[in-house]
């Protein structure tokens, strides 16, 4: 079983704050991490390998610094790592990101491709399904359990709003995973040592035979026009006085609005 896990290096957005006066992000010392969902995707691939055998490759598209994320994946136990890095990839939206990743996956070959459900910076959850479309293979989103994997097929549970669906698919297939799926292992000491020395394969636009007009900013149909702070409410009323007066005022407002 050949597996590719797509991982993205992201700023830890739980630590990003916005300054409402200037409308700008405040990012002081926010660390870069592997997108948390992708760590679960790595764990899932390692567990499939333990049962069915095979090879796991971690793949990322990003600046040269994204190598750090790949070394972390190697320390968890993936066999190989590939870094898609080229100035031509800069400014990719999800369409161009998925196109570029799919070209690399074609080169690497895979029976199962694993992605996180979404990345915590862009938050779109679009890259996984778009890769599957470019590769012309099926995909299943929000995997919370893998029941069976092998013999040319896979059976998984897909989390839905009102429960879950049990789904069977032929291989190759792309899966996007949610955090309930597993508890990721911590890197072992041996893993960390090996990761330090491991060779990381670098891939450029030319290496993957990508069409230049489909890459980066040029290949991206969407553009970020501007960003701003979430709005605060303009109609806010602070109720003043003693506790009794405040409660009284609130009840009066609610009665006035016919809420009671």
């Amino acid at each position, binding site marked *: 079983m050949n597996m590719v896990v797509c991982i993205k290096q992201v700023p830890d957005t739980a630590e990003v704050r916005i300054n409402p006066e200037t*409308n700008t*992000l405040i990012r002081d010392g926010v660390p870069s991490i592997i997108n948390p969902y992708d760590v679960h995707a790595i764990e899932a691939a390692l567990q499939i390998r333990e049962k069915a055998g095979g090879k796991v490759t971690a793949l990322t598209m990003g600046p040269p610094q994204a190598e750090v994320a790949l070394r972390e994946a190697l320390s968890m136990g993936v066999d190989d790592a590939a870094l898609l890095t080229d100035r031509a990839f800069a400014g990719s939206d999800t369409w161009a990101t998925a196109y570029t990743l799919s070209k690399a996956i074609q080169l690497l070959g895979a029976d199962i491709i694993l992605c996180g459900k979404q990345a915590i910076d862009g938050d779109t959850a679009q890259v996984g399904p778009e890769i599957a479309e470019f590769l012309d293979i099926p995909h299943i989103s929000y995997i919370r359990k893998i029941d069976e994997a092998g013999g040319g097929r896979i059976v998984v549970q897909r989390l839905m709003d009102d429960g879950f669906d049990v789904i069977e698919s032929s291989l190759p297939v792309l899966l996007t995973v949610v955090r309930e799926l597993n508890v990721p292992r911590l890197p072992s000491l041996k893993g960390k040592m090996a990761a330090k020395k491991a060779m990381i394969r670098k891939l450029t636009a030319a290496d993957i035979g990508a069409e230049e007009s489909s890459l980066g900013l040029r290949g991206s149909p969407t553009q970020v026009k501007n960003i701003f702070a979430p709005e605060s409410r303009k109609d806010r009323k*602070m109720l003043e006085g003693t506790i009794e007066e405040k409660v009284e005022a609130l009840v009066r407002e609610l009665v006035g609005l016919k809420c*009671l």
Partner: protein
Amino acid sequence: MPIVVNKDTCTGCETCVSSCPYDAIVIREGKAEITELCQLCKACLGVCPEGAIRETGESGARREKSEGTGVWVFAEQRDGVIAGVSFELLGAGRRLADKLGTNLSAVLFGPNAAGPDELIKWGADRVFHCEDELFRNFNDEPFAALLSRLIGQHKPEIVLAGATPIGRSFIPRVAARLHTGLTADCTSLDIDGESRDLLQVRPAFGGNIMATILCPETRPQMATVRPRVMKRAEYDLSRNGEIVKVSAADVGSRTRVVETVKEVSEVAVNLQEANIIVSGGRGVGGEKGFHLLYELADALGASIGASRAAVDEGWIPYRHQVGQTGKTVGPRIYFACGISGAVQHLVGMQSSDIIIAINKNPEAPIFDVATYGIVGDLFEIIPLLTKRIREAKGL
């Protein structure tokens, strides 16, 4: 478009450095410089006191703007029941179509004899309906294949779908196949008066910022839209429209739904349908504190919600959680009791009509989104409020 620093006006003041979520701005030889880490998120534009950071004009060789007319809405259903978000999309779609002076179509997949008529009464001029059994369960491939084919044939300029597990899973395949842009999880949509482009606003960075996204050249412009933020249009019994039957010939699937398991708890359903929600956070202090909230909820006929902090403390089960990692709710009234108002919570309840915040700390960010704010101790306020509400309701 690439972002550059004008070295002549840059003073090296470093204001811009911490504005970049990707650490892509460095100071080199006393001047700011944008490195290859730049993701073009534009967080730095407007930060520079000297106006030295700007976008350059070169956007590369762009395609011709492709053609399209009409606004489309994908009407999702599960088990033959049309999802509420579909009617909200018709409301939003109607407003966009009227602004553009064009018509509104809905697309419905799966058996549902009364569905098309319903969609027309909620605002659609035309409904494409495929009744094939293939669409009884949700599989990504056939949904993507048929919707792509219809869009290819009729060339709408805008396509909207719900940002639900179904919409967010298969709509990206449609966008990839049609080589067009897709904006995720929008909370507001409008038409730019000049270019007639769709202005798509969505949260990113875990809800910490909002971004306006454009899809200037390719058509259709596609967006998934967060449930419970758009207003429905008027339900009009006298509305007429056209129903177009569609066949599913040539559409197949390599995935198969073996089984569908329902796991809804009463509360989860309740929360999303509730008229009034009383929610508690860390300030509630424990299970005992939640009892005060239960009594208030009882007097109001409300459901109980919670912030992640209260759930993590084990005071109340996860299914009550509201926010980024819990439920998105939009009741008429939302009581936030002892909830500080972290963005991750706010994104799940901000679209409530009336927000009442009760918190000891006058600086708590929850007051920024509140309609009514009470600064004070909830252990004093809630029991009194419960009593007064009972009296007002004659209970």
